[in-house]
């Protein structure tokens, strides 16, 4: 187990380095400059040039990257060019929002997806068809459109939930829950479709194995066979899919944060990209990568937990 974690951490450092370099190069290819955003469209070319110099944007690219990396390895992501705030502090304020959103949506997608997948695997053909339709609809409906529909229904027409905004857990758990219900549903529906399909396929395959027939012959109830034995055997591919869904939801959170005006990392990334706030974009890319690495590590550990064969190998 320790070896697995150690190997993962070494490859994660390399991954972070590559991600930071690639994102730096990609961002540098974008046209425009933060000076334009800071000074607005009415400033003169000389004013833009002066601010570019002040921000160090007239230095060679490698020099800019080396400076950034030197500070980043010490945990110092610098200050936002636009707001002047320390980036670590700014992103730390936003991290709980994105974590609440994406982890909650992943859990919801997993619960919904597994429930639908199980029903699809054990029910009749017509029930399976209904589950397929629900899954397909979940995958096909665009998140932003669904979000706007849900807001219109549950915040405007029947005002039981807030239309926008986020409330910190510490400010009130129920308010926190209320502020996240619509974003969770919006984000989770697409992911649940993927998990449902994977659950049905894996469970279907396991239910055809001889040990299941033995359990049936011994008179075990369907519920016990499915939930206590078969699902556990089908869990590894489902967990893999949950990991993939988490990454997908992380990128999907950018749009959902915009629709629900949630102050998370995704909206920080959008703001920073629009304003060419290079240090913030870099930092968000690194933080997103860290999140993905951590979740993948947790998924790996979960494999070991649910399947002893993985532990032995």
């Amino acid at each position, binding site marked *: 187990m320790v070896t697995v974690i150690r190997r993962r951490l070494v490859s994660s450092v390399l991954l972070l380095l590559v991600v930071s370099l690639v994102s730096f190069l990609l961002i540098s290819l974008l046209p425009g400059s933060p000076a*334009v*955003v800071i000074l607005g*469209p*009415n400033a003169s070319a000389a004013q833009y040039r002066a601010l570019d110099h002040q921000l160090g944007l007239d230095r060679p690219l490698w020099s800019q990257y080396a400076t950034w990396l030197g500070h980043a390895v010490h945990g110092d992501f610098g200050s936002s060019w*636009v707001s002047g705030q320390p980036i670590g502090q700014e992103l730390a304020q936003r991290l709980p929002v994105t974590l609440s959103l994406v982890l909650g949506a992943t859990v919801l997608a997993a619960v919904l997806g597994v429930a639908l997948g199980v029903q699809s695997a054990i029910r009749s053909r017509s029930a399976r068809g209904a589950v397929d339709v629900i899954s397909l609809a979940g995958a096909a409906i665009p998140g932003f459109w669904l979000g706007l529909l849900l*807001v219109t229904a549950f915040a405007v027409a029947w005002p039981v939930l*807030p239309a926008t905004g986020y409330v910190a857990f510490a400010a009130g758990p129920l308010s926190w829950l209320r502020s996240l219900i619509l974003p969770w549903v919006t984000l989770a529906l697409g992911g649940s479709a993927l998990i449902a399909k994977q659950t049905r396929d894996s469970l279907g395959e396991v239910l055809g194995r001889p040990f299941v027939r033995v359990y049936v012959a011994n008179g075990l109830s369907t519920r016990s066979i499915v939930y206590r034995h078969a699902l556990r055997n089908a869990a590894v591919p489902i967990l893999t899919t949950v990991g993939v869904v988490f990454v997908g939801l992380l990128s999907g959170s950018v749009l959902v944060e915009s629709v629900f005006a949630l102050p998370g990392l995704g909206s920080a990334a959008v703001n920073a990209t629009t304003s*060419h706030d290079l240090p913030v974009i870099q930092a968000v890319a690194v933080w997103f990568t860290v999140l993905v690495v951590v979740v993948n590590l947790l998924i790996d550990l979960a494999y070991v937990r649910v399947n002893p064969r993985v532990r032995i190998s």
Partner: protein
Amino acid sequence: MSSHRSRTVSRWLTAATLAAAATLALQACGAGGATGTTSAHTGQLTMIISAQPASLDPGLMNVDPNNLALDQLAYEPLIRKAPDGSFGPALATRFGYVGTGNTAFSMTLRSGVRFADGTPLDAAAVAKSIDYEIKAGGPAVGWLGGCTKVTAVGALQVDVACTTPNPVLPLLFSQNAPFGLVISSAGVTGPGSLKNATAGAGPYTLDATQSVTGDHYVFVANKNYWNPKAVHFDRVTLKVITNPDSVLNAIRSGQADVAVGDPSTADAAKSAGLKVVAAPSYTVGVDLFDRAGVDARPLSDARVRQALNYAVDRTAITKALFGAYGSPTTQLVTPAYDGYSAALNEQYPYDPAKARQLLAAAGYPNGFSLQLEAWEGFNVAKVTQAIAGYWAKIGVHTQLTQDAAPAAWVNNVLTKKFPAGGFGYGGLPVYMTAQNWFQPTAGPFNPFLSQNPTLTGLLRQAAAATPRQSAALGLRAMTFALDQGWWVSASLVDAAYYVHPGITGISVTARNIYADMSTVAQP
């Protein structure tokens, strides 16, 4: 079988009961209003702004409704511009030009005023603040022209001396421009702090601990404000929501009291029972940057530029894109400013035949190709696409590059990558419009540094003239420029604010397109 069915029914009933209970709980919690962003209408104001402010620092702020809303809360102006366009006292009790020629301006300050940090606001502090804002090099600095010598005379008098005439100093020292928003000496001495804190003498101060940059900004009442009666709220929250549909949903559901609106949702806002306060604000169209034909030779011929104007059906574009919140226009200047004339909107009626005739006379009977650029904000890309469609009908075929961010647009324009591009501009007097469009100072509205001696002469005279003479000269200048066809305007678009009934003081007119945050109240 029957037992199984009754178990199933019972399970459904339990689920339904739980769902109903949860709904009631959510509703009960909603009624409590403990959602963080919900305004309880008890000494609190929540306003939605539609974009992240470019900077909190007045020296670097952008002059737009979002950035102004934020800075007006914390920084008291020297002069207050009223909705009717007149200028009245604020920190300066008396102000005006000295002598003739618009080259000297003097302001007498109110006594006994203190900044939020408790330090006195005197002439020295005001001079230092304006000096800082000039040196900060923000987007508005070009509008000052040669008026850069600011002197404190005694404790309460500030004099401004100009090397060239400037007729818009009252506006530049008002709440609608950075130079009017006075920064304390502490703020000026450490300008880095102005990016995430405020240092003004306005009715509120930013509470950075409760704010999240780019998401929401919380202001609390300034205990040192000179006019406590004008502090209408204990707390004001500015919430950034960029998606127009989300803006509408948030204010409809009662999460905000006021919002910076958008023409695309204004009708829906009105239908939802909100007050829509709107006024003609900015012009959208295509700027023909390369007026000398450096990269796009056909544009050097005035007949071609005029043909491009005749080819466009402004009425159809405006009706389709803006409905009741826009009107067709040929002009750059908005109504109520000198240089605007309703008659000039008849200068280029939709006449494709005449457009083709002019193209043929200029030597382009089969049209030509043109590279265009537009950014997606302020409906610029939509209007540019529509104009390009009309041009195609007279044989002028365009390749349009769209940019999601204004930064990319301005960068491409300043590096002269495109001979023409979409623009959204307006709400400014002739003098300021001329600085951006007709003077050879590089900027995104005149990147090829075009100028014309006749136009420059008229504008110089207008800048130094009395208001009455200036109006006539300004109109002559804009008429001349319109004849040259340097741009193709299509629509004059409204600035809109959505206001909950019960909130007062949001007023915008063609003469003052930005809401004055100091007047917003809940009687």
